[in-house]
């Protein structure tokens, strides 16, 4: 079920909320939690009930491993370590089979000219997310940072529907203690008001903004796949549109998840924090898909040795982490390339830092740094979005295919530009192209200088880490439960609701 679907909004969500609070009031908290687990499994099974077997198996297995890891906390470490390795390997094996088997066989066939056949394996929804969530849990259990002996609670931790399909990737200790709070079992107008506001802001971003940008991005990328030569403005409009589409898609999704959890009185960790404001790539990864970055850092980068084994190993570890992180997003070489590119960006960023002391604290420096960072990110998104390498390269060629009128204007620089791939046959400049730059400046201003959802909601602890919220906005830029805000929020909600019936899929779903 999609968050932006009618069945979710008008059937699933109200029924789940009412059931949860009714059971919490009259039958006891255990029943309320059981209700939430059943509802979440129903939510998951909506696409295909067969998937229930898989997620059920995965939960049972990991609950068992976690049980033993927690029970044996004071026993010999080598046995526990072996148990952890086996359990993580089983999880990765499951993920690998469902996500990468087809890709692997395809590439083996390409490389060896062989003809191994494997039936098309359908990627079970959310497997990338619930696998990572549980791996983190196992490591936490191994370290003694998490412990769960109650299977019902464990099942809720894994399946709680706001995070089940597309994150955030939670730690057990972040969410489960909140269900120990008796207050969340009775409905609170505050949680419903704050949660609904955050949810509808997210819905608006998704169905009004992201879907509108998709209308501009999709045809350009589709044309690139056909190999047609793209003009300068067309290629850039496509690339920028996708850059904004993905931004509002993921931002909207994260908001909806945070808002939904809040309706149940639960706070989620921050997952998306105005990433395009980043002034360098390191900063970008602290703002984009934060819980994934955290996971990759804690459980992959550090496991590889992090930065403790010298500069070279550090850079190698960074590259490996990002390449695997790229592949996590999808089984395809374009995702690997995207990860590789970001790995290279990060290495360059760290190397630059160790050489150049300049921090660019003046606003012009920040603007420059922001622009360069965003351009690097945009080039990455071209690989992320394109279906094939060929399509991505066609897009990039189009972006380097400068307007025809510029040919001959660069003097002696022109041969140099041409030698690095620039062309001068990108079409003529028309008046609508000037409008494009206004459009671009407008949306850049929004993603750079407009408060994000956490900042609008800053007075009401919308997320767990309040420290990441900027607070120096004018007072009127703060939501409050007033008449005025009720009307504005309702306006945002109705704009989102009117966009519901042309449902489009979330981009992050397949990852």
């Amino acid at each position, binding site marked *: 079920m999609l968050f932006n*679907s*009618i*069945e979710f909004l008008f059937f699933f969500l109200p029924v789940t909320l009412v059931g949860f609070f009714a059971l919490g009031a009259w039958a006891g908290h255990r029943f309320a939690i059981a209700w939430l687990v059943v509802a979440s499994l129903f939510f998951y099974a*909506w696409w295909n009930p067969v998937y229930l077997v898989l997620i059920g198996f995965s939960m049972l297995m990991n609950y068992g491993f976690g049980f033993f890891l927690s029970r044996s906390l004071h026993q010999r470490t080598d046995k526990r370590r072996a148990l952890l390795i086996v359990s993580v390997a089983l999880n990765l094996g499951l993920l690998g089979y469902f996500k990468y088997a087809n890709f692997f066989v395809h590439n083996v066939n390409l490389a060896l000219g062989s003809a191994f056949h494997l039936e098309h394996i359908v990627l079970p929804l959310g497997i990338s997310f619930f696998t990572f969530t549980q791996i983190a849990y196992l490591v936490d259990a191994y370290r003694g940072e998490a412990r769960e002996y109650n299977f019902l609670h464990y099942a809720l931790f894994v399946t709680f529907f706001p995070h089940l399909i597309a994150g955030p990737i939670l730690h057990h200790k972040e969410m489960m203690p909140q269900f120990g709070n008796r207050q969340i079992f009775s409905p*609170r*107008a*505050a*949680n*419903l*008001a704050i949660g*609904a506001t955050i949810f509808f802001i997210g819905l608006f971003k998704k169905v009004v903004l992201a879907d509108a940008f998709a209308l501009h991005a999709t045809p350009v990328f589709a044309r690139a796949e056909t190999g047609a030569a793209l003009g300068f403005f067309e290629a850039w409009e496509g690339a920028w549109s996708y850059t904004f589409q993905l931004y509002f898609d993921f931002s909207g999704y994260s908001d909806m998840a945070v808002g939904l959890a809040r309706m149940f009185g639960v706070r989620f960790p921050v997952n998306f924090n105005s990433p395009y404001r980043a002034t360098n790539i390191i900063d970008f990864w602290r703002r984009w898909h934060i819980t994934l970055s955290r996971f990759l850092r804690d459980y992959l980068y550090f496991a590889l040795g992090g930065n403790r084994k010298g500069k070279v190993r550090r850079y190698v570890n960074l590259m490996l982490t990002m390449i695997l992180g790229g592949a996590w997003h999808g089984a395809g070489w374009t995702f690997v390339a995207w990860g590789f590119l970001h790995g290279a960006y990060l290495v360059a960023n760290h190397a630059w830092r160790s050489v150049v002391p300049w921090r660019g604290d003046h606003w012009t420096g920040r603007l420059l740094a922001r622009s360069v960072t965003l351009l690097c990110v945009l080039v990455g998104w071209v690989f992320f979005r394109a279906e094939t390498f060929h399509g991505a390269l066609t897009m990039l060629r189009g972006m380097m295919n400068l307007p025809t009128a510029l040919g001959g204007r660069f003097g002696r620089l022109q041969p140099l530009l041409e030698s690095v791939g620039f062309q001068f046959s990108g079409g003529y400049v028309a008046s609508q192209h000037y409008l494009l730059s206004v459009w671009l400046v407008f949306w850049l201003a929004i993603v750079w200088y407009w408060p994000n959802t956490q900042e609008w909601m*800053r*007075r*009401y*602890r919308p997320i767990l880490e*309040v*420290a990441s919220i900027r*607070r120096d906005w004018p007072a009127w830029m703060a939501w*409050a*439960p*007033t*008449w005025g*805000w*009720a*009307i504005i*929020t*309702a*306006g945002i*909600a*109705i704009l989102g*609701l*009117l*966009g*519901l*019936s*042309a*449902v489009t899929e979330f981009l992050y779903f397949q990852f």
Partner: protein
Amino acid sequence: MQGERRLPAPRGNRRYRVFLAIFAGVVVTAATAVLALTVVVDPFGMIGLVEIEGFNASKPHLFSNARLVKAHYIRRVKPKGLILGSSRADVGLDADHAGWPLAARPVFNAAIPSARIQEIYYYVRYAHAQSGLKRIVIGLDFFAFDERIKAEPGFEVARLDPDGFGPWRIATIRDQFTAFLSYGAVSASISTLRSQDQYAVRYLPNGGQDPRRREWNISQKGGHHAAFLAALRETVTSRDGVAMLAYGPSDETRNVELGWFLELLRFCKHEGIDAYVLISPVHALWLESIWELGAWPDYERWKRDLVRIVDRVTREAAGASVIELWDFSGFNTITSESVPPRDAPDARMQWYWDASHYKAVTGDLMLTRVFGGGRPDSALPASAFGIRLTPENIDAHLHAIRSDRIQYVASHSGDILLVQTVLDDVPERVPRRQ
């Protein structure tokens, strides 16, 4: 909290209650306002509560949403007889034709623009689940079998799923949202209100198109001559290969489109639905453009494939019903009707609107012929119009069409110029016949 004054948290629960009440009140009010507009205007004709000439009677968004609209009409009408096919069947085949047996009434015209064979299959299954079909007539088009285009935008399997429990109902509710509570519904309502002066875009209660629209269209375009040119030009330049298409292998296990056709006939046989498959009588000039584009061999192969599949289904034991394949295409007195010259915009053709669409009088001839069991009827102006195809006569039939074509080209050199004009205009459209 970092220097900012923190409001007393949930203590003032009343404030939040008031907030929620205002929030819900505004949302409900706004939604009601939107509904008031869309329900009254009803841009997709889904409920027909208000229908006032000059206000909302003409619905310019109807045909582009035919896949949505007709599914809901079917649910309302509960037909026992069904007409399927593309816009050709939509304007040409009459659901009120006298030949429809009583048991197969009411008849509904479920033809949709550019229908693909897979779509036809799903609409038949869906309608059958609603009301139990007795007889269907399919106006079959070559382009419905294009490998590259399985369905057109607006087609949804979920909407037509006859046995899905949840999804079926959800799909219906979602359609109601699309039709009444969406940006599309609002903008369609406004543009419906604004374009009442145009022409009668509406479906008749039996699902067919109001013929006045075609009439209006022909005058707008400047007569039949211009309409023919436009239709032929679209044929030759269109991306979805209306005349020349990607027609795959002649094997229904590999040619997915043929597979759908086979499934469709099997379904009819199994469910006891009489199925009359009528290959559309496109105008001779349309056939000539297929010929000129070099797609004739595929066109003939397609007919042979249809014959083979019909024969196969007829022989298969399961079920009992009439399955007949009729060919109305070719170069006969109907399809060869002369096109009025350019300088006679007011001249009206008897059988055709344009090169692609035949008139309802032509459709009546077809239905009379088919429902009459192919008896030679002296009242018919063209007894040779339409032949029932069998494995025995297909070779001779195709051969006859080829020789008729030679005669046609010789005797209609003026009309043929139309095709040449169009082809000369679009030299980039490649493979001309050698």
